[in-house]
């Protein structure tokens, strides 16, 4: 018997607490595969966020630190500067990274901290129950935008990859999605590259993942995938925004 595909060794056996159909689990697995393939498991130290992935520290088999909301890049900076040989990642959601932690992510990029950031954009606050996120789409209903996001009142969604691409210190920025096997394969490549960059000492690398949240979008799983494709992708186009890995 040959195994074609199974749970990566750098993830623990613990069943995950995420809602059915949620994208977090897929991204965890892709990160686990990247860590396994790069053979860096004994060097990885991860930072878990506050939000739905607050228990991520129990899913990754590497050493993990659980930090305060939005401060992942600052914590990762402290770890990386103290242990430069470690491979440090910060795993963050959209409220975490693009709202309360905006200063931390921008300045980690400005300093070009040699860390890997995985940014889950599902256009909503998940853990707290579906409030409006900085990435919530215009017209999208949230519990704090009951009539849908109105730009006159709540402004427009923020595009992090585009914004960070203006910063010299940001070396690799790519936006991917996990709505189909094809896109999952592309996401895998991007995540692996973001880790590989750190091994090579390239500098600040971030992968933004458009991820489905059926629960807080009040959608079935197929409807959620459709939302990613027809609503999110026009606002958040997939692709590479910066790649200075080889330079």
């Amino acid at each position: 018997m040959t195994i074609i595909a199974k749970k990566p060794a750098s993830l623990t056996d613990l069943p995950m607490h995420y809602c059915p159909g949620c994208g977090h689990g897929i991204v965890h697995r892709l990160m686990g595969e990247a860590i396994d393939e790069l053979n860096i498991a004994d060097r990885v130290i991860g930072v878990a966020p506050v939000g739905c992935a607050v228990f991520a520290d129990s899913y990754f088999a590497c050493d993990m630190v659980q930090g305060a909301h939005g401060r992942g890049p600052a914590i990762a900076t402290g770890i990386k500067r103290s242990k430069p040989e470690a491979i440090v990642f910060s795993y963050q959601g959209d409220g975490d990274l693009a709202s309360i932690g905006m200063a931390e992510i921008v300045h980690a990029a400005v300093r070009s901290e040699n860390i890997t950031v995985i940014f889950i954009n599902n256009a909503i606050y998940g853990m707290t129950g579906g409030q409006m996120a900085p990435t919530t789409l215009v017209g999208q209903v949230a519990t704090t935008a009951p009539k849908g996001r109105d730009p006159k009142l709540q402004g427009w969604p923020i595009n992090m990859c585009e914004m960070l691409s203006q910063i010299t210190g940001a070396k690799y920025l790519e936006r991917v999605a996990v709505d189909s096997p094809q896109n999952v394969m592309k996401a895998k490549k991007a995540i692996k590259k973001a880790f590989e960059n750190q091994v090579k000492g390239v500098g600040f690398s971030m992968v933004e993942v458009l991820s489905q949240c059926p629960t807080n979008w009040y959608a079935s799983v197929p409807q959620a995938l459709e939302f990613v494709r027809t609503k999110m992708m026009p606002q958040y186009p997939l692709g590479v925004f910066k790649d200075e890995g080889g330079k």
Partner: protein
Amino acid sequence: MTEKTLRKGNEALAEGAIRAGARFFAGYPITPQNEVPEYMSAHMADAGGAFVQAESELAAINMVYGAASTGTRSMTSSSSPGISLKQEGITYLASADLPCLIVNVMRGGPGLGSISGAQGDYFQATRGGGNGDYHVIVLAPNSVEELGNFPKLGFELAEKYRMPCMILADGILGQMMESMSFHFDPIDPNTLGKFDWAVDIHKNGRKKNNVFSYKGDNLIADVVERAKRYGLIEKTEARWEERDAEGCDVLLVAYGLSSRACLEAVNRAKEEGLKVGLFRPITLWPFPSKRLAELASKAKAVLTVEQSLGQLVQDVKLAINGKTPVYLNAYPSGGQPDGHTILTAVRSILNGGKEGLFDLQEHAAGFTYACKRDTSLGIQGDLKGGK
């Protein structure tokens, strides 16, 4: 022990911290502590450590959280408004049981306040400061020499009990120059050994380490375990200094810079034939309550001298528990104590006067508060105090 040299308080502290094995520093500019990050930026790299000028105090304390997770001797410094910003990180550090050093070179407050020295952050430091049930160990130096030597003590206590330790200094102490010496040889952190809880590179397939704030399963048990540790600290780690404290009539209680002014008062009192002693808490948490209560029981009165609006006096009253009268000589928000005024307060106590003694009720008498808004909430027109 090094030879005596003339050093500025903040620089002595920074050099003392590097000598004590600090190898990570993150901070943000704020007066009157700027010499600390400036010194670190110039010397930390040479010592093999890392200095980061953070984008904010919030980021700085969280960088310390990350560095402390790896078991590295890590620290930050700031001044009052900046320490308020750091409270999020401090409560996380306490909940994750991480040792680190936090320095507060206090300035006048509240809010932006002033840049002159003050002691208004006593409550914030000794009561935790952030959310939840926790403490940090608080050391209060009163000289440049102690500023330079306390980082070593601070790291050792923080690591022994796995909790943050704060050095609570003030603007004047940070800015003044004094002759001082270091009482220890520089420590090579590589000789300190590794913590079994720290996150690190691990080649031997050891069990994974997690540094958690919220452990998820039993928060009550965690808090109770921490409380037991706090109890042990209160029992064993209280530190203080006494001057003529046995058998005095009036016992002065003061920490930090205020205690220096008290020393002057003690000496002047002696010349006048008055029996005045000084009790100086060195650890503000744990507060040396037991010894203070013993000494106070033999005195006629206790006078608390502080550069704040009656904060230290509350711990003094708790310790003495009503057995001896406690008076307050206060210099809030940047006011500076002097021996002459303190001695005036002592005489007032002994002669039944009021000069130099701070009493909020007394101050309120004769105070007029103009309230222009006419409301139906019971506050109408001008509130006129006084008799």
